């Protein structure tokens, strides 16, 4: 019985075939069919953000966990090789990433996306120059100005520059050339930032109020990039900038006055047996209330081991220059601590694909022990905690 079907009829038949099971529902009076919805908002409360960068041509994701117990509450997703940050109050997330429609060939575009954290929704997408750094994420690669009206985006083609984005207007105001410099460390006042340069100096860029022009000042030499290279990772301590070198030397810098000045260098592993060095990516995090720096460290560190996982996390009293405690927390490559009197420490492990919460005891020399964990799928090097 050969026949020729019309395309229209065929498609309708097929739909019927597919949906017949779906359209069937019960006649029983007591049963009320359930409804399918999307949750409107995440549960409230402080959050931990982990930026999972996709290097395989798929979406990067900012995973959002409860800071309480690391329950996974939601996520926002963007393009490839994301850089990520959040607003100070934790209500807004920013992701700079690349979309490559053919994954492995042809042109793409780079965008800065703004997300409402509560609803996990994209609220704005701003095209940026096709120069975004395709680089392992560090918090210094996407930063906001002090008043959070501008975003600074690290470029690398491999020529380096910084794209300045007016967040209210949703447009790029300029591309600041920062040749031989990398990393963005915003000033605490005004519109501007500093960057680490290839000769061990820093350059500070002070922008006009409209973000359209800049002036720059280069510092004296701050560190020796050959003998004592510093990580991109940084945190603030009482308004100063803290960096740490591969070899565990803490550089405390001031950026007031539009130029970086070196305040002190503190070797935290001096006198500790075992050739300890810093180990990880997000390796500088400072608890303000107690003046304690937490650093993932590994023994027998050597050329090339600086991004390996930790053997321990050290609690170092930066005010009294004293190593207080060495918690045996292995395989961490990123740490973040809250600023309160009772610090909460978070960290994650690439090896174990896990994010962890650690309870820190101020009465026990800031010893840290694990109290929660959650799996993280993918490649992450940065994390942040919101109020």
């Amino acid at each position: 019985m050969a026949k020729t079907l019309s395309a229209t009829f065929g498609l309708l038949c097929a739909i019927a075939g597919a949906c017949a099971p779906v359209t069937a529902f019960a006649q029983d009076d007591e049963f009320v069919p359930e409804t399918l919805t999307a949750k409107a908002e995440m549960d409230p409360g402080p959050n931990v953000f982990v930026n999972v960068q996709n290097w395989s041509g798929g979406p990067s994701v900012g995973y959002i966990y409860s800071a309480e117990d690391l329950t996974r509450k939601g996520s926002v997703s963007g393009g490839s090789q994301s850089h990520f940050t959040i607003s100070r109050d934790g209500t807004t997330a920013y992701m700079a990433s690349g979309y490559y429609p053919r994954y492995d060939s042809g042109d793409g575009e780079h965008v800065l996306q703004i997300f409402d954290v509560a609803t996990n929704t994209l609220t704005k997408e701003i095209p940026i120059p096709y120069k975004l750094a395709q680089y392992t994420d560090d918090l210094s690669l996407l930063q906001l100005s002090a008043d959070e009206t501008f975003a600074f985006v690290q470029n690398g083609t491999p020529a380096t520059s910084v794209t300045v984005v007016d967040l209210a207007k949703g447009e790029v105001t300029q591309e600041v050339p920062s040749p031989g410099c990398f990393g963005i460390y915003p000033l605490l006042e005004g519109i501007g930032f500093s960057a680490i340069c290839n000769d061990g100096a820093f350059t500070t860029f002070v922008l006009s109020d409209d973000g359209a022009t800049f002036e720059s000042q280069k510092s004296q030499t701050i560190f020796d990039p050959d003998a004592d290279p510093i990580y991109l990772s940084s945190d603030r301590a009482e308004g100063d900038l803290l960096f740490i070198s591969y070899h565990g030397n803490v550089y405390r810098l001031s950026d007031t006055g539009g130029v970086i000045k070196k305040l002190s260098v503190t070797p935290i592993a001096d006198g500790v047996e075992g050739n300890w060095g810093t180990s990880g990516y997000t390796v500088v995090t400072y608890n303000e209330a107690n003046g304690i720096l937490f650093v993932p460290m590994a023994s027998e560190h050597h050329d090339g081991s600086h991004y390996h996982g930790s053997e321990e996390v050290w609690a170092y009293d930066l005010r009294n220059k004293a190593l207080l405690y060495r918690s045996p927390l292995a395989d961490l490559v990123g740490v973040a601590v809250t600023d309160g009197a009772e610090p909460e420490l978070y960290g994650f492990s690439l090896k174990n694909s896990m994010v962890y919460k650690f309870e820190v005891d101020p009465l026990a020399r800031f010893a840290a022990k694990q109290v929660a964990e959650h799996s993280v799928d993918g490649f992450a090097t940065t994390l942040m905690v919101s109020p």
Partner: protein
Amino acid sequence: MAKMIDSFLGWMDAAAENRTRRIADGSGRRSFLQKAGWALVGGAVLPMLPYDNSNGQAFARGLGEPDELPEDCEYWRYCSLHGSLCSQCGGSVTQCPPGSTPSKVAWVGTCRNPNDDKDYLVSYNDCCGKGGSCGDGCSRQEGDRPGYRYGLASESSWCLANTDKGIHCTVAIVVGQAE
């Protein structure tokens, strides 16, 4: 298990035929097909609220379920699930995580509810439009058939009829009783 399959088969055959015929309301096969097509695109026939802040507590009516629902693959309504649990990434058993979109179409399973010892039809909808993984995957796939019975095909993406394709996780909605 055998009973469930029997029930399932019965539902696929006469019972479903009867019900769909009732829905079709005698207005002709072509008309029914158009309606069915619309229902399918409309999402499991049922009215779908765009957003819900009930934390997934608005369900379990008439199912005799406990207040706290289990989150593992062995939960009864996951009998034909093939996907990761939305309850592990910001959603719930019946809610897509915030910022994702329920799929317009779904595959269906028939699961035995141990709370009342009845069989129910469960609609497995993907939550779409969000990249990245969710929690653990489940692959129970009871009653699964290949694409020649597409409405039972758990190996398909069910974001396929949505504009936003990214499959994030899968929910399990009890949409009817199996006879």
